[in-house]
Every structure is written in structure tokens, then in C-alpha cells.
């Protein structure tokens, strides 16, 4: 019965739209996008997530009026998600900050650039003189351009002399970096998105791909539609739109999934899916103490993680774990994709390791269609911060502050004494904001991010922001962070500046300046340059007249590194749809697979050695030895906060498709606000019944760190015992409740699991 009516209905709707097609346009407000003749279109990159979709920016009379997909871009082939369509609204929003502001008598007041920068320079120099460089800090962003982060790095690490340089990717990608370095020896995936169309099986873990990385999801979906035999396993404590494509969904209790990955390895070995010769030739098997073990030891270790034992830990039926492992093993090629669900955990690096294990164990890596592929949250977290060295232990171009040779090399390029760069890593994000609380750090420069909203347990860190000297460079005003700012500097926004974004798949793409910055806004890199000059680093910053000069200098630092970008000057990037490093020369097309045939580094340095050893891959990364990757024997680890009698629910957070981070951009679009106007807490109907909560009722969600009044959405998306809140709205900042306990390796906090209770408001 249902079927017939649906069929009828489709017929009907086809007729209706045909009829509508005859009449006038039903696209009010959108006509300009179709009428492209009088517009100039510029090739660029989407401002939002880490997928890195190519966009065409439509400019008319000096104003950005439309954004559409770039059909020639290999990532999205013209498709976009709904957010990007409304980007012009963010550019032209009334919430754009037009002029610098200085806090006077507790109130932010309009100021001139001269006055504002003088004040910041004076204050920073005072602090530096009285308390040393380490009393200053920089907190950047995976949304800043590589050039911007590069300027900040030079100013703080090279000139001021502090390694207190961090960025919000610490909160989202650090565990993935740790995972790649410890497992494969080098950061960032070995493959590219094009593996999607070549893969027979997908393991989506801790990722609501459909909402957080929509175009990647669309590619997976299209691929599955064309090839119905493709299998997809989803591991997530919540039902999400991603399930649309899933063949099997495993629902672990939040934070209890490590045992599942070990159990999958157990099944893979026991049922003969392991590629023993690959394991032997290409990997070490190590335990937590880095002792090397045999395959037999590993098998023995896994006996603690039989599917039945994993069921007890994770709550996922053993049969489902076996089924998932079989799907992974049976498929000729498998691809794992994951994001915050694995990374934002105190066991984040371990969880990443365990996913890499599955691929190393079965040899499903380094061949088309097989890869362990971490999805990045922000558009330039990979490019600007991971590659650009925007974290406290890094220097640009995959260099490390602890290595003397690296410090010397970078200092020479920067034109500063090598002794300026401290040999010890600075403070990681949570330590940095704790030091701000404690008064150890007395001045901080925050660029292109909103930590007062986005930090976990954020209320705790408002104290330091309130008490210390805070400079915020931001395109939008107000934000939760500008509330604590002593100086706010208006930054040019996307399309008002040129630069490079590097997305998830190692692809660096160029973005042109299309329009002039609004109001008195200035490009972040120039603000930093001018500030540096005012602080007395005239000589060091005199040469940075254009973005290209900065990029070329940075590019030079990547020569000979695993992330070689020498073949990617602006002149080339302006023509192509990005280049995937390593790209050593200007005639090199970019690399598809790392560590194997076709990778220029492998081909020139390691290929013959590998072949004589009978290997097909050589893991040449800085953390790998003898060209081998590592299979880690990682035991289970509970989340930092396990639901208790007082706080019986596991609170987890995430994104929705329509919004982005702290709403500074998507909040400017009435259409997106209409779509998802406010925060809500998803609670399973059985839990709602138990707590006497009705749909749309106001409830109180409480964790040991704070409480929040919020609307209930009674729906069977989260599993019983779990509640979910999207984190975008400043009126309902759920991050106040999140746990700031962090992974000891990656220092990435555990946003994804907190104990909470929920009661009627």
C-alpha cells in the first residue's frame, strides 16, 4: 500500500514541477545566481569545513553576491552543501566589525588603528620586559590562512621568543596527528578522496559525515548507489543522517569503543583476513612501553578483546562486531573515515592507532581504495596549523622546536638568531588557558577563533580571559571572546584577502582576493606584521609586502620535507584546483599515494631499498624506523568521566549541517537560522519517559561543571543513556558542561564524553 502511494506521489510531484517550470521563477532572491553574465566569477575554496570544496565567488560592482560550486574542482565537482550558498550573507553582514576597538572604563570603544596597535605593542613589550616572552601567547585557528599562521609563528616563536603558540586544531585534530605519527610515522593521510570511488568498504567511526563533511558523504553515497555491493559500517553512539548509507550500525556507549577495534583485529586474525607477510615486512608490533613484540604476542594480547569481552565493555553485541570485522576483511579494499568522535577523547591517540591497526594488519593501505583517512574539521587545520607549525611544539613545514637543526634552519629563513627560538615546546591549549587563569601568561593574541565559546569547560577559562590582557583579531562582532577583549582588531574576511587553504587530503588551494575588506578591516597577516614592526621587529618584518612573499618563504621551508610544496607557487596554484603534496617541482602533478610507487619521495629515495626487501611501501616519515609502520597493542581505556548515579547520562556534542562552529558566520543567514534556530538536547524516548520529559519542554542539563537550560527533543537518535547537544549557539553554550580532561599524548580534550543529568526545568 505504502509503495503504491509513494510511486503515485512521485509522479505527482514530477508533474507539479513540470507545471511550475512553465511559469515564473520560483526562486525568489536567487535569480542573481542564475543571471551570471554581468558577474565576475572567481575560483576559490569554501570557507567552512575541512573537505575543501572548490567554490566560485560571484562578484558584482565590488560586492560578493553569490557563491556556487566549482564544477572543475575534483573534490566537489560543483556540488556544495547548503551552508556555503549563504556565505555572501556573512561577508556583507551587519555583524562585521568595521573598526578597531579598545576597552576604556570597562567598555569597548571605537579607536583608530594607530591607537590600537600602539597600545597592543606597548602592552606586549611591557609584559615581555617584566615577565619574559613566555608571559605572552598566541592562539590561532584552523580557519586562518597558512600565511597568517606563518606570520604569527615568526612573531611569537622567532621574535618574541615564546613557543606559546597554539591553535584550535589542538581541540579537534591533535589526536589524529598523534595517531598518524605514532602509527604511520608521518602526519596526514596516505591517500586522497579519490580512494572513495575505488573502495569496497567504508568504516565510518565517530563521524556524522552527512552533517559534518557533507560532500565527502555525498561521494560515498553516490559510490554506493552505483555499486550496491559496497558495504558501509557506522560506529557511533547516535543515529544520524549518515545512517542513510549504512549497512550496519554499531552503537557503543560513548567512550567505550576501543575494545571494539581490538575485537575487530581479533576477528580479522582468527578468520584469516590478516596479511601476515605485509605485517612482517612493513610493521613493528609495539606495546604501550614501545617494546617490540611478535605477531604471536599480539594475538595473545587480543585474547583479552574477544568480541564477547568487547561486548561487555562497549555494549555492542558480539555478533555485530564480528559482522563488521568480516565486512572489513572480506572487502578487497577498505577505507576508514573518522573525526571528532575518536579524536576528542582522552584515549584519542589510542583510538586512532587502533583504526590504523586494522589497515596495517590486513595490508589495506597504500593501494587504491584502501586508506585510513582522518576527516579534518576546519578548512586549514591541516594546511596552516599541522603543516604550518601553528602548535606549541612545531615550526613551519613539519619542523620541531626540540630539534636544534630545525631551529637553526627556520631561524635562518626568518632572519633571527637561532637562540630566539626556545628548544622546549610551549604550553598546549588547555595549559595555555590554565596559565592565563593562573596569571603566568599575562597577554594573549587571539586570531580568527572564539575560545570563550569553544573551549571545553569554558566557564573555567573565562577568568583568565577577564583578568589578563586579551587582544582579539576577528571579522565579526560581538563574539563570546570579544566580551573579554581589551583590544579588538577588525580582520578582513574570506574573499577580502588572498592566501592558501590546505584541506583534509593534503591539497593546498589558492584563494584570491575578490573584494576590498569591509570598513577599516585589514588582513590578519598584515595586522601581525604591523604589530611586529611596532614592537621593534622592523627589520624582521619589512619584507612582507604581499601574501606571495610569505607563501614563498614558507614554501622554501618545505623543500626536502615529507610535505614538499616547492612545486606549488601562487602562479601555479592560481591555475589549478589545488595540489596534493608532496609536490617537489613545478612539473610534478602532486601525489596520490604516499609511501609507495608514485610518491616522488618514495620513488627517488626508498623504492629500490623497499623492492630489495620485498616491500611495496616504505614508511619514511620522521617518526618511523626502518621504513616500518607500527601496530600498537593498546588496551581499553575508560573515558575520564563515566556516567554515575548522580550523573547517569553520557553527554556528547556535535555539529548540525546548517551551522558552523560558534555561529559567527552561519548565524548571519536568516535561512540557516530558520532551519535550526536554537540549541536542543536530544534524548531517547525511553529516557525521556523515565525522567518525565516531554518533547519541546525546557529541561536542565547538568554536568559536574555547570548547567544549561535547553529545549528537549525527544527522539530515538541517541542510544538510551546518552544525550546529545549541538554546540553552536552562544545563548546555550554546551561547552560549559564539557570535560576539559585531555589525552596525555595529543593534549586534546574529551569533548565527546561527559557525565550529565537531565531534569525538567
Amino acid at each position, binding site marked *: 500500500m505504502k509503495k503504491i502511494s509513494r510511486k*503515485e506521489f512521485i509522479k505527482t510531484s514530477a508533474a*507539479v514541477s513540470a507545471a511550475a517550470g512553465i511559469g515564473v521563477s520560483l526562486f525568489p532572491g536567487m535569480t542573481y545566481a542564475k543571471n551570471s553574465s554581468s558577474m565576475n566569477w572567481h575560483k576559490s575554496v569554501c570557507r567552512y569545513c575541512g573537505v575543501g570544496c572548490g567554490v566560485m565567488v560571484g562578484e558584482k560592482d565590488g560586492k560578493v553576491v553569490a557563491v556556487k560550486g566549482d564544477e572543475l574542482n575534483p573534490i566537489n565537482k560543483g556540488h556544495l552543501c547548503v551552508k556555503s550558498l549563504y556565505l555572501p550573507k556573512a561577508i556583507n553582514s551587519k555583524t562585521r566589525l568595521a573598526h578597531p576597538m579598545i576597552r576604556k572604563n570597562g567598555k569597548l570603544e571605537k579607536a583608530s588603528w594607530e591607537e590600537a596597535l600602539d597600545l597592543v605593542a606597548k602592552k606586549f613589550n611591557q609584559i615581555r620586559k617584566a615577565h619574559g616572552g613566555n608571559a605572552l601567547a598566541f592562539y590561532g585557528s584552523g580557519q586562518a590562512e597558512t600565511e597568517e599562521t606563518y606570520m604569527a609563528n615568526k612573531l611569537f616563536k622567532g621574535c618574541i621568543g615564546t613557543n606559546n603558540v597554539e591553535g584550535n586544531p589542538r581541540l579537534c585534530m591533535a589526536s589524529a596527528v598523534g595517531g598518524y605519527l605514532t602509527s604511520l610515522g608521518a602526519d596526514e593521510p596516505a591517500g586522497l578522496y579519490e580512494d572513495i570511488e575505488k573502495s569496497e568498504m567504508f568504516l565510518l567511526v565517530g563521524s556524522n559525515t552527512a552533517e559534518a563533511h557533507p560532500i565527502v558523504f555525498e561521494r560515498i553515497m553516490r559510490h554506493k548507489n552505483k555499486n550496491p555491493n559496497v558495504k558501509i559500517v557506522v560506529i557511533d553512539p547516535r543515529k544520524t543522517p549518515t545512517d542513510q548509507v549504512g549497512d550496519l550500525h554499531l552503537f557503543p556507549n560513548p567512550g567505550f569503543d576501543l575494545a571494539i577495534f581490538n575485537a575487530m583485529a581479533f576477528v580479522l586474525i582468527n578468520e584469516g583476513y590478516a596479511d601476515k607477510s605485509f605485517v612482517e615486512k612493513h610493521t613493528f608490533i609495539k606495546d604501550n612501553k614501545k617494546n617490540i613484540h611478535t605477531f604471536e604476542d599480539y594475538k595473545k594480547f587480543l585474547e583479552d578483546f574477544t568480541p564477547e569481552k568487547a561486548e561487555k565493555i562497549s555494549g555492542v553485541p558480539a555478533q555485530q562486531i564480528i559482522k563488521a570485522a568480516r565486512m572489513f576483511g572480506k572487502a578487497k579494499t577498505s577505507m576508514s573515515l573518522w573525526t571528532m568522535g575518536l579524536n576528542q577523547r582522552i584515549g584519542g591517540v589510542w583510538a586512532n592507532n587502533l583504526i590504523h591497526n586494522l589497515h596495517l594488519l590486513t595490508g589495506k593501505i597504500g593501494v587504491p581504495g584502501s586508506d585510513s583517512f582522518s576527516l579534518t574539521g576546519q578548512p586549514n587545520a591541516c594546511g596552516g596549523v599541522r603543516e604550518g607549525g601553528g602548535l606549541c611544539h612545531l615550526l613551519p613545514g613539519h619542523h620541531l622546536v626540540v630539534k636544534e637543526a630545525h631551529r637553526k634552519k627556520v631561524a635562518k629563513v626568518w632572519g633571527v638568531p637561532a637562540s630566539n627560538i626556545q628548544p622546549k615546546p610551549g604550553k598546549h591549549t588547555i595549559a595555555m588557558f590554565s596559565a592565563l587563569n593562573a596569571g603566568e601568561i599575562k597577554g594573549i593574541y587571539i586570531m580568527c577563533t572564539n575560545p570563550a565559546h569553544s573551549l571545553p569547560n569554558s566557564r573555567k577559562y573565562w577568568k583568565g580571559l577577564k583578568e589578563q590582557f586579551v587582544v582579539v583579531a576577528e571579522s565579526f562582532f560581538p563574539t563570546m571572546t570579544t566580551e573579554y577583549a581589551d583590544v579588538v582588531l577588525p580582520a578582513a574576511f574570506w574573499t577580502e584577502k588572498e592566501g592558501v587553504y590546505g584541506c583534509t587530503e593534503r591539497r593546498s588551494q589558492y584563494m584570491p582576493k575578490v573584494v576590498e575588506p569591509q570598513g577599516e578591516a585589514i588582513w590578519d597577516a598584515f595586522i601581525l606584521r604591523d604589530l611586529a614592526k611596532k614592537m621593534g621587529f622592523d627589520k624582521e618584518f619589512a619584507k612582507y609586502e604581499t601574501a606571495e612573499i610569505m607563501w614563498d618563504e614558507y614554501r622554501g621551508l618545505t623543500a626536502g620535507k615529507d610535505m614538499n610544496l616547492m612545486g606549488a607557487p601562487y602562479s601555479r596554484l592560481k591555475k589549478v584546483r589545488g595540489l596534493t603534496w608532496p609536490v617537489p617541482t613545478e612539473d610534478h602533478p602532486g601525489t596520490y599515494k604516499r609511501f609507495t610507487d608514485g610518491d616522488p619521495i618514495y620513488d627517488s629515495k626508498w623504492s629500490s631499498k623497499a623492492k630489495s626487501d620485498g616491500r611495496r611501501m616504505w614508511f619514511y616519515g620522521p617518526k618511523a624506523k626502518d621504513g616500518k609502520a607500527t601496530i600498537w597493542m593498546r588496551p581499553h581505556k575508560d573515558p575520564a568521566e563515566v556516567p554515575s548515579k548522580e550523573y547517569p547520562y553520557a553527554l556528547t556534542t556535535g555539529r548540525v549541517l546548517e551551522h558552523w562552529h560558534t555561529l559567527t558566520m552561519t548565524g548571519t543567514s536568516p535561512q540557516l537560522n530558520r532551519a535550526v534556530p536554537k540549541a536542543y538536547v536530544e534524548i531517547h524516548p525511553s529516557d525521556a519517559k523515565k525522567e518525565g520529559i516531554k518533547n519541546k519542554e525546557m529541561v536542565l542539563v547538568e554536568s559536574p561543571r555547570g548547567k544549561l537550560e535547553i529545549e528537549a527533543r525527544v527522539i530515538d537518535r541517541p542510544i538510551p543513556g546518552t544525550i546529545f547537544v549541538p554546540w553552536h549557539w552562544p545563548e546555550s553554550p554546551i561547552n560549559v558542561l564539557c570535560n576539559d580532561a585531555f589525552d596525555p599524548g595529543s593534549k586534546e580534550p574529551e569533548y565527546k564524553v561527559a557525565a550529565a543529568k537531565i531534569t525538567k526545568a
Partner: protein
Amino acid sequence: MDKKTHTALSRKSFFKEFVQHFSEEMKLDTSQYNEMFQSVTLPPGAKSVEDYIEKCNKCYDCVSVCPHSSIRVRHDENEKLSGFPIIEPRLETCQFCDDRLCVESCKTDALSSSFQDNIVSELNIDKEICHSFNERLCYTCVTNCPKTGEAIAMNKKGNPEINNELCNGCGICIQVCPAEESAIKIKSY
């Protein structure tokens, strides 16, 4: 056409007639189209448009008791529901609150408790407007639908697809649609 009951059968026959009507009258202009699928529904408890128009005495009690201001008066001279209490989901949807004060307040049986769990309606997606059918990934309607995956699901192409059998006409999809004009149209019958 039998409109007395709210069964699948009657709906099927309605569809048949509807499709036939369209295939004959393909030259319908947009204004006529708009009239067929507008963004207005009857309040919960109404049996059919005909029945409602016949029985409602325009006392507007339902309008005044609705705690969510979802029920309002239709102001459109050219329309047969003009002057009657209706719901415009784009402005405010019916929340299907437990007490159904609107149904309780109705003294004429225009709104009757035997129909209060559904708003008699058909939904339709305008593919010209819908982002999803125009290479812009969007599933706002799917994720917001209280019966997600049932009343509206993403089909294999990633486009939303409505199942009117399972839809209760709450109109949340119409309210949240991020297109300038809601791509989802609703119609009471």
C-alpha cells in the same frame, strides 16, 4: 471522492485523480499551482476542507486558546479558506500538544477529537526550489522531521522524499526549509 475516512485507500484514489487532473491540465500556470499546494493547513482535528468550511462557525476560540499561537486567521480574499482559522507552518507549526485545547474549545465539531492526531494534508517538494535537487546538499527537512526516516527520508540520491502515509502534517519541514521560499508545499484537502 470519498473523503470521510483518513485511510490509505482514499488517499490513493485521491492521488489518482490528482495525477490525472495534472496530466490533462499541464498548462496550469503558477498561480493556479500555488493555489493547489500552498503553505496552509487546517488545525488538527479537522476532517477535510469541505467538512471544515461547512461546520466552522468562525468563533475563533481555537485561535485564542492555542498556546503556541500556531492557529491564526486566514487573510486571503481570493481563497476559500479566507476568514477561517488555519495553520501556516512557515510561521508557526502545530506542536501537537497533549491537551489539544483547540479541539476541546471547538463547539461545532469542525475540530473533532477523532481526527486530532493528524492534520489532513498532502506534502510535496518543489524540486525547482529545493536545494537538494539543485546540487546543494541539504537535509534540513529530513533531520528536523519528528518522524525522520519515515515521513521524510533521504532517498538513495540524497534527496528528501516524503511519505504522506506516515506524515502527520505537523509542518516542521516547511518551517525549517532554508530555501528563501519553503521548497515543501502543503495542502489540506
